[in-house]
């Protein structure tokens, strides 16, 4: 039951991870990276690691993404790969 949910989220994690490194737009990559972190956080919540999930939600999905967006804002969205 929870195992299946687990697997589905893992699948999404992997997809968003691959997406983050393949999409040809750094802002998009940053957002996908945020999504990746958020899915990771869900995964950990399901696995019972509530504190880790909390931290990942605030740090990974929150601040990391903001920092990334800020950096993209200060550099460029362009990427060749």
């Amino acid at each position, binding site marked *: 039951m929870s195992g299946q949910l687990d697997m589905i989220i893992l699948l999404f994690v992997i997809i968003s991870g691959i997406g983050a490194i393949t999409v040809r737009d750094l802002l998009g990559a940053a957002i996908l990276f945020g999504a990746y972190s958020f899915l990771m956080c869900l995964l950990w919540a399901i696995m019972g690691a*509530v*504190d880790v*999930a*909390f*931290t990942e939600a*605030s*740090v990974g999905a*929150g*601040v990391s993404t*903001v*920092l990334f*967006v*800020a*950096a993209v*804002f*200060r550099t460029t969205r362009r990427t060749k790969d």
Partner: protein
Amino acid sequence: MKLVALASALLCGTILLFGTAEFPDFGDPDSPAASHVSPRYIEEAMAETSAPNIVTAVLADYRGFDTLFETAVVFSAAMACFFLLRIFGEDERRPSEKLYRHLPTGITLRIDPGGKVPDSPEFERIDGIWIPHDVIVKTTTRLIIPFIQLFGLYVIAHGHHSPGGGFQGGVILGASVILYAISQNLRQALGRMGEAVSAVFCAAGVFIYAGAGALCLLMGANFLDYSGLAPLFGVDAIQARSLGILVVEIGVGLAVMSAMVWIYYNLASMGRHQEGL
């Protein structure tokens, strides 16, 4: 290059996969990881530290030394960003045009270098690259931010009993300031929480943590052995541990909050601290 990368990644993965065959089964309650050290935490943490959240107990007490340095890592990262990016006195050295918005009308004025700056509360300085003028966003964030901060404080304070603690709370508090900076602008955020404040708060947060540990040393206990603080708090050793955890969580929260804000300031403005997200 791509092939090399793929090959090395695959090689690495294959080797690791090969190892998983001998792993204990996922979720096996008798695996060494579940049966050697950790049971003590689960069974005794409550009695020894009076913190029902075992993670908090382990984080701030049993392995408090790790966490001290974890906080120090955040501090050094913030310091590193400041060290690498901050540009001092850019404004004076390279005067550039400034943009002002007339609030009642929304008209944007451009003032060339050397031009006279309008001296009226109706004018607001704005950034050339980031000019949101959205009353809805500004008002909403103004409303939300206090609650976010309240929640952050709650998370720090309630870390003993529920998920959360200094890190999470600190990040939430930091995020509230960052949100303020994004919704208004960087200068206003800097006006609320300046650079010196972030830097000193950041160091002070870690200092609270390390100082609590050093205080234990002075009281004759080992470093970070909060039970040594019992005479100071006037409670028994176990309660002293609980209070010690609270003290260091506050330190962590302070440090992490300021660090996040500080990193954001430098990163978003390329260290110039005038224009930014």
